[in-house]
């Protein structure tokens, strides 16, 4: 089998895996829609406790990490070393996790005392951002592995960088939906 055909197979495998990931996150998104339609006011007041500046900053950081990941793949395709871009990607990912962890700690008091619909809001918030963070930690492991082996990749062989990139971008996309769902509810009435 040619290298190109093997690369296509590997990328197909990653896309198929990402399809299962969509369904893995899916029930939590459905639960969110159901709970929010049942108690919309509780979700708005829960959302007003979120730290919108940190959440927006984190969104920008994660999107920037996707840019550096894409640049790593672009560099590998041209035969240049992707190491520098992979390092930056990991750095942005770590900063995102640090900010997220700080938010979790700050919100915990509020969450622990919440009742009714707001308790459900916080449950979904911790479950969904938590599951997202687990994925990001795995993504960091992948990027670290790629970084360590960066010298192996050249213009002819860089499938792992491409496949790892797909995973990293997927995790970014999940966050792009979580951000408005938790941070941006009726901000004008806050």
């Amino acid at each position, binding site marked *: 089998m040619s290298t190109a055909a093997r690369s296509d197979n590997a990328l197909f495998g990653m896309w198929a895996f990402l*399809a299962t990931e969509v*369904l893995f996150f899916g029930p939590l998104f459905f639960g969110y829609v159901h709970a929010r339609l049942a108690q919309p006011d509780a979700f708005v007041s829960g959302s007003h406790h979120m730290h919108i500046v940190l959440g927006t900053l984190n969104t*920008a950081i994660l*999107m920037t990490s996707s840019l550096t990941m894409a*640049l790593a793949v672009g560099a590998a395709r041209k035969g240049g070393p992707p190491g520098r871009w992979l390092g930056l990607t990991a750095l942005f990912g770590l900063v995102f996790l640090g900010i997220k962890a700080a938010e979790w700690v700050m919100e915990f008091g509020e969450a622990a005392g919440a009742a009714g619909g707001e308790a459900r809001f916080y449950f979904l918030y911790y479950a969904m951002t938590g599951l997202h963070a687990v994925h990001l930690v795995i993504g960091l492991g992948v990027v670290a592995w790629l970084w360590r082996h960066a010298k192996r990749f050249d213009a002819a062989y860089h499938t792992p960088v491409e496949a790892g990139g797909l995973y990293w971008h997927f995790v*970014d996309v999940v966050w792009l939906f979580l951000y408005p769902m938790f941070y941006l*509810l009726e901000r*004008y009435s806050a």
Partner: protein
Amino acid sequence: MTYVLTWLALMALLALTFGSSYLPMGAWNSVANMAISCAKALLIAVFFMHLRQAGALLRLAACIGLLWLALLFGLSWTDFGTRTSSPAPWSSR
């Protein structure tokens, strides 16, 4: 260059979604937020994840998960959405 332009578009959309949440539009706020998130996801899928250059197989694989998600959302909603209007015979309510 394409990557940097994509990133600039993502940042502009982030500013748009952030800013629009301070305009009182009622339910349309959520519609706008979800539409912007979908636009961002599409930009990432097409340019960062290279679906633009990908063959039919990869494009299909990328869409199929969303298709299944839509089916399962639809099936779940036919259940939860009709529980009060047409309760099951054995339901206590």
